[in-house]
């Protein structure tokens, strides 16, 4: 806990974005308390009312309060994005680690499979898969998972390959560590920081993908309040009721920006290079490090002088 507070103190930007993201998640969790009306309750006679004191964001075609639908939409959009990222993160990383660790035919099969998936334009493939499975949020999540796991698989495989033949792994093998232990204790933790950064920066783009599928009718189904679907519902009223497009668009924009910034700042915090520098500082202190540098120079000099002799 102390560590976390320290990190947050050192990274005020990251702290700020964390607060914003937390705020968004809170809106999703507390939607029933925050929403002024029931997002499903349709008062047909109140259709397409302009934003007013009574309905801050106006009403939609079925006379439902738009603000309440936007607030409830946070639930659908944020939760599906988080579930999706968790899914592709865990499935992709696991496949990548296995392929990298075992190598051989398993590596070939899994990576060629990944190559095949990458060969297709991802959103179009997702549309095709969602189309075959039938339109629903769950199927949209499955479709995007199928096209997106490759990124994590390739990344974690390359990270594993980098450390697969290091001395400490050889030592661990020599001292009798079993495969499960090796993966759990050495490989996974070493790949995690990079994968987590990728996952955090992915939340925004995944949310956009989900919204795209819903916009096209392959994701959320009526009457569910989901921003992508709400945009799609409102597009007919571009000229006569622009608020139907402005508010869900704005909501998607804000949430995607917040999660992207959060991902970027998380990268700054977890950057392995930066971590190395910090740990060096902690281990040696400045004086000690200077001493080491000097000794290294002496050694070099000696070598050269030896050559002369």
């Amino acid at each position, binding site marked *: 806990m102390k560590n976390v507070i320290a990190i947050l103190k050192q990274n005020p930007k990251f702290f700020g974005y964390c607060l914003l993201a937390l705020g968004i998640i809170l809106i999703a969790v507390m939607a029933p308390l925050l929403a002024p009306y029931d997002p*499903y309750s349709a008062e*047909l006679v109140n259709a397409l009312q302009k934003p007013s004191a009574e309905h801050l964001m106006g009403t939609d075609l079925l006379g439902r309060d738009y603000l309440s639908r936007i607030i409830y939409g946070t639930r659908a959009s944020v939760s599906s994005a988080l579930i999706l990222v968790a899914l592709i993160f865990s499935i992709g990383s696991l496949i990548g680690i296995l392929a990298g660790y075992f190598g051989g035919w398993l590596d070939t099969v899994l990576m060629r499979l990944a190559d095949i998936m990458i060969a297709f334009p991802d959103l179009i493939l997702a549309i095709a898969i969602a189309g075959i499975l039938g*339109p629903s949020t769950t199927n949209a999540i499955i479709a995007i998972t199928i096209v997106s796991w490759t990124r994590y698989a390739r990344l974690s495989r390359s990270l594993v390959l980098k450390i697969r033949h290091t001395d400490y792994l050889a030592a661990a093998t020599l001292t009798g560590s079993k495969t499960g232990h090796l993966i759990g204790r050495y490989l996974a933790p070493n790949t995690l920081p990079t994968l987590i950064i990728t996952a955090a920066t992915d939340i925004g783009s995944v949310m956009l993908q989900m919204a795209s599928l819903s916009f096209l009718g392959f994701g959320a189904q*009526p*009457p569910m309040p989901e921003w992508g679907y709400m945009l799609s519902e409102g597009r*007919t009223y571009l*000229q006569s009721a622009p608020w139907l497009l402005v508010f869900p668009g704005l909501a998607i924009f804000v949430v995607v920006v917040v999660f992207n910034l959060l991902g970027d700042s998380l990268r700054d915090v977890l950057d392995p290079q930066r971590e190395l520098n910090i740990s060096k500082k902690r281990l040696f202190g400045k004086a000690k490090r200077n001493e080491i540098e000097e000794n290294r120079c002496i050694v070099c000099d000696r070598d050269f002088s030896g050559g002369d002799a």
Partner: protein
Amino acid sequence: MKLKKIGVLFVIAILAVGMLSGCSSSETETGEKTQLNVATELFSDTLDPAVAWDSWFVMRWGAGETLVKFADDFSFEPWLAESWDVAEDNLTWTFKLQEGVKFSNGDAMTATKVVESIEKLYADTAVENGGTGNPQSYFTYSSITADDAANTVTIVTTEPVPDLPGCMAYPWMLITNVDESRDLTTQGPICTGPYVIESMTPDTEVTLVKNENYWDGQVPFETVSILKVEEPSTRTLALQDGSADMALSISAADRETLESEGGYEISVVPGSRTGFAHPNLNGQLGNDTLRQAVLMAIDGETIADVTTNGSYTYGYAVVSSGLDFGYDELTYKFSYDPEAAAKLLDDAGMVDSDGDGIRELDGQNIILDYKVTASRQMNVIAEAQAAQLAEIGIQANVSITESQSDVLKNGTFDLCASNDVTTPTGDPAKFLGYWYSKGERNYSSYSNAEYDAIYEKLIVEFDTEARKGYITQLQQILLDDAMPVVYGYYNYNLCSTDAITGAYCPTSDFYWVTKDIKPAE
């Protein structure tokens, strides 16, 4: 070096001018408009009149013509035939053809050609040849003969068909110059209309050119471009930026915008289309009480007036209140009354016993699978209805399908939206076959012996007044049986810019591009 640069700039400027001038190809040097641009939501995949409803488009686009034409009150007008009559036997019909009609390739439209055209349609659509069987469901004939000298065609039907002139006005009866070497799917038939199909990209775009051999006066435009623009708001924008001269099905909200901007001709007519949902009586909606409660829970009037913004005119009967088929004589017991609907369900024991907000019927949650197509605002109506059904504890899951015909045939629905021309042959007799239990199109699996008996009388009755009487009775039986869920009557609309004149929306939905649409003076 400098010269070279100037040269390059010059070439770029020439190219740019060339490209820009390419954009305005619809006008000649004198500024006269030569191309008519149409934006439409509906489009076909082929040009073959024998395929499903593709003949509609050949006719709508101004290429095909039929022997008989519908007037706006659905009476019959001469078109390629100048007159017709039926013999005493009520089976033998003689059509006298117009003199001097030519096909677009210059061939004369003789009686023999007309017979060949009809015979080809019947051969191509025959079920045994893998066809749709659609024209055969309207009428079948025992003989069809041509008399070229008298310029008449004689059709002897197998059963009395009182609305045969209406059947001959239906788009698939468009007269073609039969040429077996022609690929109808892509090239389309040779017809008699003012424009000739030049090229077509399925589901995207079609280009037509002037028919040099047109028999009925001057053809105003050199070319006609018909573009599929699926998005209603994009069609409005196309009108606003001038890339379309006329567009069909503009949303009510956008029509208001166009009206306030000025410079547009907006034609809205109550057509003969009824929007409705077939209930599947093999499912939960087979329960009469449930069906009645569903009707009473839906505020059809508000949905038509507010939700669709007047795109539909509300009515409870299956035949439009705007047509003269006895709407005013009908009585309806299931008007909007959600409290009564809830009470009806309570009394019938359909209550929510597990507290999940959904009532149960025979221990099963009442969850209706509601299939709609996204055209003509039916999806919006279905969602509004679903929201109202939810209030009385009935869940309706609305899902959008590409086409409803497979859904209807396979029975994979509880409610399936449909939007039908109720008077395809001038009166609703064919349309009312949806509920004839011995018919092939009885998708609801509805069965009522009284209905069947009256229907059987209707289809052979020649007297117009008697037909109206039967049609009224059939509608009343359906109303009493809470069948089907009627949305209302769709109002067609066609908007055009002031670059053209004469664009107008007919009640029949069959004629869009006509010889009467001309460039503005």
